[in-house]
């Protein structure tokens, strides 16, 4: 199952963004994006970046937690 490498969001939160093809038109990688934490990754990247268990725990994100907001907007939409 394809979950987010950063926040472990479930598959339904993951968007396939773009498929990379070689000059012969064959699929060589796919870029994914997590709708929960906005992490973007390519499935050809080293495991240290895209494997939840191999990533440094420091960099995990919990989308439910409050994060600093830069320039809180005049009105939220």
């Amino acid at each position, binding site marked *: 199952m394809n979950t987010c490498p*950063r926040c472990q969001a479930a598959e339904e939160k993951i968007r396939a*963004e*773009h498929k*990379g*093809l*070689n*000059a012969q038109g064959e699929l*060589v*990688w796919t*870029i994914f*994006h997590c709708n929960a*934490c*906005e*992490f*973007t*990754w*390519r499935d*050809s*990247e*080293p495991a*240290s*970046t895209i494997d939840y268990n191999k*990533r*440094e725990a*420091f*960099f995990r*994100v919990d*989308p439910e937690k409050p*994060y*600093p*907001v*830069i*320039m*809180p*907007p*005049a*009105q*939220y*939409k």
Partner: protein
Amino acid sequence: MSTQKKPLSDKARAVGERIGSLRDFLEFLEENGQCITWTDEILPEPDVRNIAVAAGRDSMNGPAVIFNNITGYPGKKLVLGVHGSFTNLALLLGHPKGTTIKELFYDIISRWGDDKPLLDFIEPDAAPVNENRLSDNFNLYDLLPLYRINEYDGGFYIGKANVVSRDPRDPDNFGKQNVGIYRIQVQAPGEFTLLSVPAHDMGRHIMAAEQDNVPLKIAVMLGNHPAMCMFAATPVGYDESEFSYASQMMGSPLRLTKSNNGMDILADSEMVIEAELMNGVRSFEGPFGEFPGSYSGVRKIPRFKVTAISHRNDPIFENIYIGRGWTEHDTLIGLNTSAPIYAQLTKDFPEVVAVNALYQHGLTGIISVKNRFAGFAKSVAMRALGTPHGTMYLKNLIMVDDDVDPFDLNEVMWALSTRTRAEDTIVIPNMPMIPIDPAAEIAGKGHRLIIDATSFMPPDKLGSDSKIVTPPAGPEIDEIAKLIQLLQNGGQS
């Protein structure tokens, strides 16, 4: 702002006339052995990062690197390190290889100003940037060979875009139109976040647009004239034009045209992405490996949607490696950070000889000054802390005599070793500090240090903890560095 000008040399004038775009500059660098092409097939990650770090090791003579064979991006070109070495900057200003940093500093000072801009305006139809135009179905992942710059970045960043925005409350004012480098994280095929803070010109534009509930339109210029990048990263006055500074430095006209959404843009850039602020929306952004060498954390920041894209045929995507220094970021902004501090100091203190604020955007500064009387250098240091850039950035200041080249660290160390008394070290507690400085007491506040390493004069009787970006290292990178040197020397080691 303006300083004393001297006429440009014939060579500088000729180079200024020849270079009208990134493409022109890459060709010129290549002729001078300062641009190589990486033709072997590489993966976007981690290969681009590995090669960029290895090429960037030589801050004096490292080459720009063009990539034309990235897996999954057939036919696409990426270039890194265009401003990656002082020799590349020297060539841009019409100097030979081997020009010292101090010589470059004085040359930039002599060209500094915006009072004599050289700007040509051409019709949009005649602008090379409009050779191709897209008005829907945007896919930045397809148009640009995007990749992750550092391994824990939150996504794929555009790190060297020159972003044009107009003051929504004074949209016809050319001077208040801002050109700045802001980090851009691609968030969707046609959307991105852009990091600015209220103190930046762009931040002011964002806040004004949201308060008045009016659209904020921007133009993101990619692959630009090399002088433009240097001034987009330079803090000039709010009502001063970065276009004017850049053209004046080159001594030759910059060609501008109008974007479809009303911005003045460079006519010869590789690509211009027109976009509009998504009013009130904030999205997760980061982490991003920043110039102090550590990651700035995850935040929620303003988001933009693409409204049109123009690009040249076969556009070249220019990006930057940034992280733990030395990196291209340091070379790109170092001299342009130093020059305004020098200009501001010499107004009051003509005894100031040179200012080196190359290190981490001036977190450490070295100022050379001719002591007028005992303790004078300390007064100059206090004044430096009060300059616009000094207020936030100049954290550690080392004051040296006028006989010490502040750009030569061996000389600076000699001054520290032989002319510093421990008593001449001043700590000023709880001062403002940039939020991303990992040594801040709390984000945005910390202590300043002044070391007076100038010699004695009468009446003197005497003669943390944060996450570090880990750039690729080890034998593999050593090999790449050797290979780069070989390629640069045309196969001769």
